[in-house]
């Protein structure tokens, strides 16, 4: 076990390399997070629009509501 941490010999460089790798992975996760947020925002925008469209047509189109709800569900499922 005395090979573990030699006080000499480039340990900063090795750790630096692995840290850089970790940094890149975390950065990528961060970018994914941002992308996910944007998509969530878009989806809530669209949901609002759909619902606004529904209430706009509500008086004449009550039978239409279950149909749009079903379409929303299907969209949700295919997204997962």
């Amino acid at each position, binding site marked *: 076990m005395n090979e573990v941490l030699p006080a000499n010999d480039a340990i900063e460089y090795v750790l630096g390399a692995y840290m850089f790798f970790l940094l890149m992975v975390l950065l990528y996760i961060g970018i994914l997070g941002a992308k996910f947020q944007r998509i969530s925002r878009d989806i809530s925008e*669209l949901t609002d*629009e759909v619902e606004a469209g529904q209430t706009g047509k509500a008086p004449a189109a009550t039978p239409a509501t279950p149909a749009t709800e079903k379409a929303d569900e299907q969209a949700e499922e295919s*997204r997962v």
Partner: protein
Amino acid sequence: MSSNRLKALSIATVAILVVGFALVFFWTPMDADQGFKQKIFYLHVPLAIVALLGFMAGGVEGFRHLRSGDKRHDLNSYVFIHLSVVFGVAVLVTGAIWAKASWGYWWVWEEPTLVSFLIVFLLYCTYYPFRYAIEDRDQQARYASVFAITAGAFVPLNFMAVRMAESVIHPRVFATSEGGLPDSMLFTFLICFVGIGLLWLLLVKVEMAGKQASGQVSRLRRALDPEAHGRTVGGRIAPNMETP
């Protein structure tokens, strides 16, 4: 990919990488020639090999796209190449760190594998402006496939030429992985290689899922209001999943 398989892939990737790196630092013996800094190779070499395999897989998908016309192959080609370019950045940085540790300089022209990787990396960096420059989507996909095939053919040629150009026989650091690599080092190397490979695969799947989601958002938009939401989500460079 279903969320269960994605979860399984993520867990497997993290587990294998953690085990691999733990082995690197706590189990594998020290290299006799280079000492502790040799341990960079358990990170640098798998990244490089996976990136190169990714580039060539991108070429294969390009070929399949030209053959069948199925846009999914173009999407695969793009994502493979994109992620390999990202991995390529990591290859070059870890390679530079190793060079600094070994020779004292951040870059050495005498290490042929590093130099040829740089050239390959630069070539694939041109993939993005190239795609961007072509407006028609179908043409863009076709031309991108041609690029992927040409660049794929280029990779081995380039390595050969650069290697031959090195007249001075420098102590090849990668000789440790060619000549008598002790079993313990080989084992650790393989574990790290599998881990990095799974990481690449995982990131590919995640990118695809992201593109799928963006594509569906666009379709919803357009279904709701064709005039107001004419703009495409997902940019002009990359293929998207708008048309199923």
